[in-house]
């Protein structure tokens, strides 16, 4: 069906993940060139991008990818999103996916796009992420923590009529490794609600912040760090929202195998540190999240982290609109995949002015989606805009056949 169409051509590594996701959802082949071609030291695809391609390969059937010798050119021909059906690398209905130790992105880098694909899969999507590259905390590279994905991204799928049997279990926590790469976490994603088409979204009332929840985690370090982070964050947030609770989780450091000559069974601790994830929920179900974790080099007091995170949350809320910047790509992509109807979403001006969002809009139009209509929100002085997105009505190719 899609083979007759010429591949869509893109350049550079920017927004690579979402281009691949859109390609998989729409069934169009993409040709991405000049991937870091100007970099003399690290040209071509980065390790985490390769990992993402392998993940796509694991959850789809019949996708083909060609990478040039230098890794600067990628041709991706998508297959059908199968999810974790038996016989396609899934054991016991669960795909085990291992991330290599040189991965420097948080797991949310993989989780969020995977969750975008999951509702359109043929079978429930069950993936277990393991290996020496799984970082569950937020990272210096700008990825949010897995806790935030669970509490701030996945609940948004409810707006699209996708809510059954979705779980994200953190089996083992890990912060970023000492050099900013590697971890040892273990996370299980169960996405059991597959739909033909996501519902049309009309979200134009941000409401007011009703409650704030959070998860504070210490991995391999003293649990008193948790108390200190909670104390500072609550000190800032409690006067603003009395319904503030931050849950504490203390975990031991994960062990990853580190064989040496004398002892091939040797293991080492990795991913020590602490961090905080905060989610504010408004009265209309809009979610805003903030994430700060201790840097891999250390040297930051827990109070500092707690304060930063609380302020970051306030900043996110202050940006306005119904969507946090971290979730805006998810929302727009799902809206575009929806039925051929106009969905509306109120968004803060700063949120939509983000270069990533603009890039997403350009990519979407290149994939054949109609342009967005943007107008000022009528009744508020915050400078929010209402974005109207027309769905493509493609939805779930796998389900149409089945």
């Amino acid at each position, binding site marked *: 069906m899609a083979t007759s169409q010429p591949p869509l051509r893109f350049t550079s590594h920017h927004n690579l993940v979402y281009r691949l996701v859109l390609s998989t959802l729409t069934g169009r082949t993409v040709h991405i060139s000049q991937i870091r071609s100007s970099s003399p030291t690290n040209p071509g695809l980065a390790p985490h991008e390769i990992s993402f391609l392998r993940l796509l390969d694991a959850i789809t059937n019949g996708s083909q990818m060609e990478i040039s010798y230098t890794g600067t050119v990628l041709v991706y021909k998508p297959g059908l999103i199968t999810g974790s059906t038996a016989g396609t690398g899934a054991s016991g209905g669960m795909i085990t996916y291992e991330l290599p130790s040189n991965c420097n992105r948080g797991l949310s880098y993989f989780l969020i796009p995977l969750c975008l694909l999951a509702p359109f899969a043929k079978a429930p999507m069950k993936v277990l992420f393991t290996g020496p590259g799984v970082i569950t905390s937020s990272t210096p590279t700008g990825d949010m923590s897995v806790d935030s994905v*669970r509490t701030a991204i996945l*609940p948004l799928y409810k707006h699209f009529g996708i809510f059954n049997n979705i779980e994200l279990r953190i089996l083992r926590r890990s912060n970023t490794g000492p050099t900013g790469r590697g971890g040892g976490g273990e996370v299980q994603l*169960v996405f059991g609600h597959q739909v033909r088409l996501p519902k049309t979204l009309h979200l134009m009332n941000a409401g007011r912040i009703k409650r704030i*929840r959070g998860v504070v985690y210490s991995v391999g370090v003293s649990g008193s760090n948790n108390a200190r982070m909670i104390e500072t964050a*609550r000190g800032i947030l409690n006067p603003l929202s009395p319904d503030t*609770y931050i*849950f504490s989780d203390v975990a031991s450091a994960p062990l990853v195998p580190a064989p040496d000559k004398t002892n091939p069974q040797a293991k080492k601790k990795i991913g020590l540190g602490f961090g905080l994830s905060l989610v504010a929920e408004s009265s209309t179900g809009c979610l805003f999240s903030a994430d700060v974790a201790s840097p891999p080099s250390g040297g930051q007091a827990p109070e500092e982290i707690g304060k930063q995170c609380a302020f970051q949350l306030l900043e996110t809320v202050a940006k306005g609109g119904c969507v946090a910047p971290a979730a805006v790509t998810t929302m727009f992509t799902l809206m575009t995949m929806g039925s051929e109807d106009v969905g509306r979403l109120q968004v803060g001006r700063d949120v939509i002015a983000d270069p990533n969002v603009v890039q997403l809009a350009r990519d979407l139009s290149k994939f054949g989606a109609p342009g967005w209509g943007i107008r000022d929100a009528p009744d508020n002085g915050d400078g929010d805009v209402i974005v109207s997105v027309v769905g493509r009505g493609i939805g779930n190719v796998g389900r149409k056949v089945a």
Partner: protein
Amino acid sequence: MVVKRKRETTVVSKPQAKENSPPPVDNAQDVFRRLFEAQFEPLDLPGPTAKSTNSDEENEDDDDSDLSGSEGDWDGMSDISDESNQVEVVEHTGTYAAPTDRMDKKTWKAFMSGKLLSDLDKPSIEPEPTSKKEEEEDAHESANLKHDLALQRLLKESHLLDSADDLAPTGKNRLKALDLRMQSLGAKTSLYAQTKMPTAHRRGIKAKAESKEDRRRQEAKENGVILEKPSKVQKSSNNGRRDRGLVGSSVGKFAGGTLNLNKDDIARVQASGRRTMGGRGKGKTRGGRGGRGGSKR
């Protein structure tokens, strides 16, 4: 909070006793300061330590005039300003009293489990375990329900009463109401369900019901809604072969209390015995069973 108050009261009293003796709190600091100043240059920091030496006192006075020139004779300003510095220290190390931020284990588990929506939608305060009072209330409630039997019946059967307006139905309505009560008590079918009707008629009803169910399932599937499993259609008693009664022999005919075997039957029985589980005989019985089990569904 309490600690802070206390300090402020001492601050107010301080300017009066200033000349006489430095407050004991700063003693240690003053000792260090004097030691420092003996070795190096005197410090000109505003602060409580200024009270110790004369030169510092002058300094302090200068500070006062700088800080609060308009305030005239009241000279407690510098003390208050450095007291505010100390307040910062207190806030930093003081314990933040928050008795309610401990969530119980259950809520913690609910939130930290992998589930998404239940945790955030759940009220943060969960209902207390049922006490005696509540049990009593429950009993009361059930008693009320019993008392309201008449009302319940009325509500249940009210659709029969739209024409009649008395509470005790009569005639046709009475019969219908009785039938409903029978059903609610466990009667399998209505007394008035039509038992006999033309085959075509019944088939039509059945087909319609089936198509309705099919359409419902189809729509649910398209929308991704998960429905209950289709219930197994109960086997009607007389599909395939007739009931053979107690003596369910597979050969012959059982009639009038006797098993009648005709010649064919006898021949078959003998043949199967001779062949010692011969392939053909076995195959035949199996085939028969298959037919009986009904590949109808």
